């Protein structure tokens, strides 16, 4: 696949998609077909492939895409992916938080009385590393959907999850106890493409920095 820009770009579907396409428009790549077509995944003429944000690092690491856009949350969770993190794109701001039910902190209570806290998350490695770094024992329970449900049903005492506004947490009677890190969209590159397509990638970087 050899699009006009010379680069294959992995674009995340979901919350980051619109801002990402706006950015790609500003690079002079026409994204109207991508915006107009919800089901198509591969847009060969303009060098765009669309996917879940958590798959972007996979495609870029393997060289199936030269560069890509994904959240820092994904890069933190998949820290062993061999990709270059080139630029903080600033948008898509979210916070990775530790949250529990409101009232007396059940996580602190579990740690005090039982010595271990149960934590539900979609970000297994992130949560594991955070509790290790803060010297607390935790049993990490990996769930695939609606993490908020886990503490409400007694599955766990706490959750580690990404939140933009905190609305979902509040609606489920959960409060933020600790903030792990702020996540924004990042531009990443395949290590081989970073050398072999250096001028094309530097050109993109320059335009994004200027824009």
């Amino acid at each position, binding site marked *: 696949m050899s699009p006009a820009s010379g680069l294959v770009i992995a674009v995340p579907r979901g919350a980051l998609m619109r801002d990402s396409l706006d950015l790609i428009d500003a690079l002079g790549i026409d994204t109207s077909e991508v915006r107009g077509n919800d089901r198509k995944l591969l847009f060969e003429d303009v060098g765009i492939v669309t996917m879940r944000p958590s798959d972007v690092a996979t495609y870029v690491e393997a*060289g199936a895409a030269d560069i890509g856009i994904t959240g820092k949350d994904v890069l933190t969770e998949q820290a062993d992916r061999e990709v*270059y*993190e080139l*630029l*903080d794109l600033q948008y898509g701001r979210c916070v990775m938080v530790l949250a529990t039910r409101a009232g007396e902190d059940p996580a602190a209570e579990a740690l005090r009385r039982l010595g271990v806290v149960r934590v539900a998350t979609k970000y297994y490695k992130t949560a594991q590393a955070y509790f290790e770094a803060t010297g607390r024992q935790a049993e990490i329970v990996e769930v695939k959907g609606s993490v908020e449900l886990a503490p409400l049903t007694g599955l766990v005492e706490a959750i580690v999850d990404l939140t933009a506004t905190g609305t979902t947490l509040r609606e489920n009677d959960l409060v933020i106890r600790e903030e792990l890190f702020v996540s924004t969209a*990042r531009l990443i590159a395949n*290590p081989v493409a970073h*050398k*072999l397509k250096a001028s094309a990638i530097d050109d993109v970087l320059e335009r994004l920095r200027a824009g």
Partner: protein
Amino acid sequence: MHPIPSGTRDVLPDEMRELRAVSDALRGVFEHFGYGEIYTPAIEYDLGAIRISGDTGVYRLFDDHGAVLQLRSDMTVPIARVAATRYAAVAPPLRFSSFAHVYRGVRPHRGQMREFLQAGCELIGSSAPGGTVEALTVLCRALDATGLRYYRIGLGDASIYPALMEAVGVEDGVRSELLDHLVGRNFVGLAHAADGLDPMLVEVPQRRGGPEVLDGLPGAEGLRQVHAGLEDDVAERVILDLGLARDLAYYTGAVFEVYDASIGRPIGGGGRYDELMGQLGRPLPAVGFAVGVDVLHEALAAEELKR
């Protein structure tokens, strides 16, 4: 079913013939340049001080006396051991090649195996820039012999960034943080950590291209000499890359990686390890490289599809 451990694989005759042809092509060039093939044991005593950085990938076991053994995780250290012991009385330079499976406890995902075949050369007792030029030349001739067409060599220098940090006066505590981000390929983190410091700390490691990327840079003389010493057809393959950081701790000077446009990860790499021989009791400058035979085969197949 009888599964095999993850990160290992069986090779059947059709593939084996092709792999064999790749190895034979490499071996012919290595021998032509005087790099005699040697073999060392797959298990060796743990050499203590000499560790691959991170060190998480090495398989260790105990023998019946409780001594720590390790499964070889590369060929550079064993060959350095041979040069320091079996060739202790032989005048350098020493040239060796090897074809050996090495073992690393990585999490296997695309292209990462726990057992894989490395083909490599080590040139011991030949200093920079001459030794580095020879290693790059042998590497290119060997890849040419396999029929690979569109490869490039990324060439950097492990001493450039430390020299730059020294020159612009980075405090000790910050240095390791900057290096961590560099090895982790995280330019966002690097820019954060270097905020308020000399902008060259962020700009220089993103430079890649021809010899012009070395302009105005302290400590770049070595790389300039290597590049100037290369024959034209080798120099054409080289992309100077000032951010190249190989994650093996023993590299001291020039470092390089082999890329092919059809494969998303390096096919091989190498560099100077001028301190390693000293740790083994025979101080000599040295340089070497290794190529992953399986990934090289994969690149050849991918290039074939494009034609």
